[in-house]
Each structure stands twice: as structure tokens, then as C-alpha cells.
């Protein structure tokens, strides 16, 4: 869905792969005018899987991450390419990029120079390690980022290797901080400063910021959380994924009331006053014994029965769904959460909707992600006033 809350914001989008494109997607979903600038050979993210059988050139993730943007191509190594970029930056509010640090400067597009030339422009740079520091130029991916940032060490079986989070979550976390930073730059410019700034967002720092359990709790308690298998941690709570008859269920039992509800669910109300379990502290001290009782109960029940009966007792207990079940979940269906996109290459796909809803106005249907250079004529002709023959010459020269 596409709102128009940010319809007065112009964004030049030099991002690629995931972290940058999700940041600019958030802005585009809110109505910002996002022009995605790719090299003539395309954003490497166009090829990321998953793919529809037989089509390797348009990955489905690209089709999702670039909804609601318009796309042009520019070779920034060409003088004329940089001139056209300057044309796009004239009047823009934001330039967002996630190149390796130093790349813009090497192209003769150093952020300080751009801001001097376009004082209302802010630049948001999203990178693995940030724009300075001894390892600024190091390489990272999600596996390595999460290991380094502390997410991985406490997950998995005690006697096995720690387990990394699935997918590319770190890229999305970095993207989110980048999108927030973009709005912060706009607010600072409009409410006081009057001019733009160059903002530095490190994905490593974003992962550490979202992992406060490890760093802060360790200092407070001196205790290190180790891998606890099915348990989130051993503490004054029972947060655990439990095997049941037909899959797994997730239980989040923290308060006395939730624990009383759990005892009732298991038909063991006497456990609530059992001296081993009658306070949060005692439940922590006797965590193994408690887990054994709960496990034995869950293994004989079905996920949806546990969900229904648990929730009836106000216990946060859920059936752990597959992504297929998330897509078909009656709750996401009732709320029309997933959006159906008619992609020009992939055909009909269902994609996650906006992450929140504005109620000030109705959103419109999303526009599909651009094909490579799809809006060259519209942007270079319409916005920059180039003639058809000039655009043709640029294409011939490999600039667009």
C-alpha cells in the first residue's frame, strides 16, 4: 500500500541489495517520491532469490523491496552521468546510499561537497561498520554481523554450535535505523537548522542496539547467558519453544497470573502454590523441574488446542507457524495485510503490506518495482527536460 504522508519529500535512491532498498521502500510506502538510480547493469539485488522457475533476472525479493519507486539508470563513472545525478539532487531532500564507505567520494561525489552544493539535501549512508574506525572497510554479511554483535552466542543447543538468525534480518534492522535517520534529518532541517546533514548508520551498531539483553544485563548481573536449547534463557520466567503433537508452540509465561493460567491449563492448579514454583524467584531456581512438567504436557497436545486453551486463560501461547501458515493466517486475511502485486515479470505475487497503518487518509495500491531504466524517459525527459534524441545519445554512450 502507498500512503501520501510524505508526498512532499524527494528522495534520490542510490541503494542496492537489501539494507538500503528496504529503507527507501519505507519512505516510498509513505508517499515519498523515490527515484531509484541504478548502474546500467542493474542493482545486484535484482538477482537475489527466490526466483520463479526459469527466471534468474528478476528475483522476487527485488520486486518486493522496490515497490512504489521509479527507476532510472546512470553510469556514475561518466561525467555526464554525474551531471544528471546533480540534476536529480537539485531540489531533492534526501540522498540515501549503502555503498562501501568512500565509494561516493571516489566517484567525485563526496557527501560534504554535495551538501555544500545542495544545502537542503541530507545524505544517509548505511554501511556495515560505519564511515570511520579501523575496520571501516571490512567485509560482513548477516552470519558474521550477528556473531559479532552478540545475537548468535546464546541461541541453540548447549553442546552444539550457536545458531544464527534466519534470512537477512541484520540488513533489515540496519534499514530501519536508516529510514528513521532520514526522517530525523528532515525534522532537524525543518525545525531548526535550515540545512541538511550527512548521517552515518552502521549495521553492526544497529544489531548491538537491538541486543540489550546481553550487553547491559551482563554488566548488571555479571552472569553470561549461555545456550539453553528450547529456552530463551533461564530466568524468573518460562519463555520457551515446546514440541507438541503436530509441531512447536511458543510459550511466554512471565507473571504470576500467567503461571496460574498455565497450571490451570495443565490441570495442575496445585503447582501454583507448590513451594518450588510459587514465586518468580522460585520458578527460576527450579526452572529445570518446571520445564520437565510443562514439556510432558505439551508433547501430547496439538498446537491449535494449546493456542486456543492458553489464550482463553490469557497466557501468551502461540502455535509456531510456517511462513505458509503466516500467509494464510485468518488474522492476516481478515486485516487484508498481504498485498497482491501484478508484477510485470513475475506475474501475481503476494507481498507483506505496510508495517503500520496511518488513519489520516486511505492508502492506494502499490506500484510494482521498476524494470531496469523503466522511468528514464519520464525522469530525464520530464524532470530534467532532456529531448528524446539526447536520451537516445546517452543510451548509446552507455551513460543510461
Amino acid at each position, binding site marked *: 500500500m502507498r500512503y501520501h504522508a510524505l508526498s512532499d519529500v524527494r528522495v534520490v535512491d542510490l541503494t542496492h541489495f537489501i539494507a538500503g532498498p528496504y529503507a527507501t521502500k519505507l519512505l516510498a510506502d509513505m508517499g515519498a517520491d523515490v527515484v531509484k538510480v541504478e548502474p546500467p547493469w542493474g542493482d545486484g539485488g535484482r538477482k537475489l532469490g527466490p526466483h520463479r522457475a526459469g527466471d534468474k533476472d528478476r528475483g522476487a525479493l527485488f520486486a518486493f523491496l522496490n515497490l512504489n519507486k521509479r527507476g532510472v539508470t546512470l553510469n556514475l563513472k561518466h561525467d555526464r552521468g554525474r551531471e544528471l545525478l546533480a540534476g536529480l539532487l537539485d531540489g531533492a531532500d534526501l540522498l540515501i546510499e549503502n555503498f562501501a564507505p568512500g565509494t561516493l567520494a571516489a566517484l567525485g561525489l563526496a557527501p560534504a561537497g554535495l551538501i555544500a552544493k545542495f544545502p537542503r539535501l541530507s545524505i544517509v549512508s548505511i554501511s556495515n561498520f560505519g564511515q570511520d574506525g579501523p575496520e571501516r572497510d571490512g567485509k560482513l554479511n548477516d552470519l558474521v554481523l550477528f556473531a559479532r554483535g552478540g545475537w548468535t*552466542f546464546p541461541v541453540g543447543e548447549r553442546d552444539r554450535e550457536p545458531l544464527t538468525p*534466519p534470512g537477512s534480518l541484520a540488513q533489515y534492522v540496519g534499514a530501519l535505523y536508516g529510514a*528513521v535517520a532520514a526522517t530525523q534529518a528532515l*525534522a532537524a532541517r525543518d525545525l531548526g537548522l535550515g540545512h541538511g546533514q550527512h*548521517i552515518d548508520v552502521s549495521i553492526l551498531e544497529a544489531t548491538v542496539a537491538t541486543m*540489550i539483553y546481553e550487553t*547491559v544485563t551482563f554488566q548488571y548481573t555479571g552472569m553470561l547467558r549461555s545456550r539453553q536449547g528450547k529456552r530463551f534463557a533461564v530466568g524468573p520466567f518460562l519463555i520457551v519453544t515446546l514440541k507438541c503433537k503436530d509441531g512447536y508452540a511458543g510459550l511466554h509465561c*512471565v507473571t504470576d497470573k500467567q503461571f496460574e493460567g498455565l497450571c490451570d491449563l495443565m490441570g495442575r492448579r496445585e503447582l501454583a502454590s507448590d513451594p518450588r514454583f510459587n514465586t*518468580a524467584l522460585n520458578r527460576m531456581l527450579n526452572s529445570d523441574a518446571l520445564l520437565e512438567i510443562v514439556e510432558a504436557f505439551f508433547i501430547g497436545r496439538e498446537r491449535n488446542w494449546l493456542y486456543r486453551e492458553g489464550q482463553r486463560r490469557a497466557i501468551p501461547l502461540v502455535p509456531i507457524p510456517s511462513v505458509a501458515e503466516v500467509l494464510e493466517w485468518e488474522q492476516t486475511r481478515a*486485516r487484508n495485510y498481504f498485498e497482491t502485486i501484478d508484477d510485470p515479470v513475475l506475474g501475481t505475487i503476494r507481498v507483506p503490506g505496510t508495517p503500520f497503518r496511518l488513519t489520516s487518509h486511505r492508502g492506494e495500491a502499490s506500484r510494482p518495482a521498476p524494470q531496469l531504466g523503466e522511468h528514464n524517459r519520464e525522469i530525464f525527459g520530464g524532470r530534467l527536460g532532456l529531448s528524446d534524441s539526447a536520451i537516445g545519445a546517452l543510451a548509446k554512450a552507455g551513460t543510461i
Partner: protein
Amino acid sequence: MKTVFDGKVRVLDISMGWAGPLAGQMFAEMGAEVIKVEDTHHFDWWRGSLSMAPPEMQPIERSAVFNTANRGKRGVTLDLASPRGIEILKRLVKLSDILVENFSPGVMDRLGLGYESVSAINPRLIMISMPSFGSDGPERNARGYGNTVEAMAGVTGLTGYHDGSGQRYTLSNALGDPIGGLHGVFALMVAMRERQRTGRGQLIELAQVESLIPFVADGILEYQFTGKVPAARGNRHREHSPHGIYRCAGDDNWIALACETDDQWRSLACALGLERLAADQRFAGASARKANEDALDAELSRAIAQLNADDCVARLHEAGVLAAPVNPAPAVMGDPQLRSREYFVAIDRAVVGTHLYPGAVARIPDTPLRADAPAPMLGEHNRQVFAGLLGMTDDEIAELERSGVIGSSPRQYRAES
């Protein structure tokens, strides 16, 4: 130096846990005045349980997570079950730009604080509600917290070892919470900007699960193309190999490494003295390595188990391979890159003393974010806010304390309910 909001924006934060409080905390970083409202009975559950230590130890002031997620806020108490408490809250609503809440659906209406009511008091108010699964739909009343939201978004179902042994695991940080909170900040910033143009506030509805599902979009799309539920990949990658976590010498020491090109693979083999593997046909080319990944992992595991983790990472970095130690907390705090950028900030907080906390992420040079102010004690700023902002007299405040509408100690020493 000035902050983004320079004290000109006021946020009323009546949320608990992490998602809502994180949104409030990030506004405090931007220089907004953030007033955190708690109830002496039902104080923020992230403060923990009163049963954890005797009263004189002030256990609810010793929560690492509460003290992180509420930095820079002013803390007041109000009994929201009493008409007086609600009346005072409404006076604060009138003076605020933003109201953050993450109660279960329906609670705000029951308190007389539904959007219609607060908007009638202050049409410029932007209110964000952050229910776990949405304010409508058949499952709106289901209870969820960070981990259960993570599960319902499909993340937990994808988290397991590649060999199918073991089970499904919840991640280490209740992912639904910070992701809901961060999207909440973004949503509020968007609504602030829209208000600049329209002059009107609005209600934002953020179903936490819906803000996390986009993070597993690739799995959701893969299922649509293949008709099959994607398997948990563990530490492995869809295409690249090696891509995993390997044990090093010592007790519970591990490194993560990944090769994304053939060149990296050859460099890795040479860096670890495994030249014979670089020449091994089973591992020549990405698809061969992927097809023989179990054998490859076995070879690497044997070699790496003998090595010191830091030495091994240093060698791999020199060889241009992606690598890092699997850091427990103290190593994260000591990370050379984070230290060089002075990422962590020291804060002296009453009751617990000085510790390092994660700093603000975005580096905004002329209007820097401020993450270095402590979280409030329960009711710490009652006088400052009720006298300073609402103009109450000392007598009025004393009377509110006597009648239990406000307070600065938990009302009863009993386990949290």
C-alpha cells in the same frame, strides 16, 4: 549542540515492556521531552518482579532492560484505575504532541482514552497503538510479547539447525519488540511531518506482527513459487559455502565464517594451511562446494578446532574472508570497531551506579542524538511534572500522594499481577 527537537516536542509514553518504550526512548534521544507514566500498582512489567529481592534492595529499580529502554525520560506515576488519575492524564494529553501506548486492544477505550476522546482534547495529538496482532480481526485479543510476535511473524519457524535435528528456537532478543518499536518511531516521524502540512494529528495502528513479517519476505515469496515451506537453513546459506560457525580451541569458543566467491574459498584454504582442499575437486566451484557441504564442513571443523579464535579470525581477515568471533557480551563490549567509534555510553543511574549502554545508532553531526541520560525511578519526576507543567500546588500533590493516585514506591510488596 542542539538536538533535533530541542525540547519543543512532548511525548506521553504510557507503554510498557520494550516496543512502546523504545519508541519513547528514541524521541528522548532526539531531544523531545518524554514523560513516562506508570501506575504504582501496575508499574512497567519490565522493571521485573517484586519477589526477586527484599524491598530495601529496591528490586524494581535494578532492571537492566527497563533502565535501558527508558533512558532520558521523566517518570511519573498515575493510578489509571481512578477517575482522578485519568483526569490528570488528560491534562497531560492536552499539552502533548505524541501519545504512545501498547496495551491490549480495547484497554484504552475502557480507560476513556480511546483516540476519539484524546483527539477531542487535542486535535494535534498523534497517537500510536501497538497491539501485538492488530486492533481488529478474529485474533485481535490474542496475547503476544516479543517472542510470541516473533513466532507468529514466521521467524521462529525458520530458526533451526540445517540438519533438521534439534528443534525450533526463539532468537536471543525478543525480536518482535525492537522491530515494532523502531517502526513505531518511523511512523511517528512520518505523522509529525504530515501534521506540519495538515495541522492535524492522527491515530497510527501498528500491529507488531505486521511490522516483522516483511523481514521474512524471502521465505514467503519462496513458498509462493515452490509450494513448499522453506526449510530452516541453520548457519548455512542458500548458495554460498562454506558458510557456518565452527568451534575453536578452548571452552565454548566459536567463529563464524563465510565465502561468497571462489577466490575467497582458495584464500581461506591457504590461510588455514589447507592447500590440499583448495585443489580438491569436490570443492572446486560454488555448486560443488554446496553439493559437498557436509564433507567440507567436516574438514573445516577438524582444522579450526585446533586454532585460537582470535588468531583464526585475524588470518581469515587478512585473506579477505568474511569472519568474526561468535561474541558473548563482554567481547561485544570490547569490539575494537565499536570502541573506536565510542559506541557505548556510560550512564550513572540511581540505585545501580555507572554502566555502559548501547548508544544512539544514527550519527547526526549537527543535531546529535543523546542516549546518555538515565532512566527514571518510579515516580521520580512527579513533582517536576505535576507542579512544573500542570501548575499543581504542594498541597494538591501531597493530597494525590495520600489518596494513592500518585506515589514513588510500589503500592504493595507482592508479586506482580
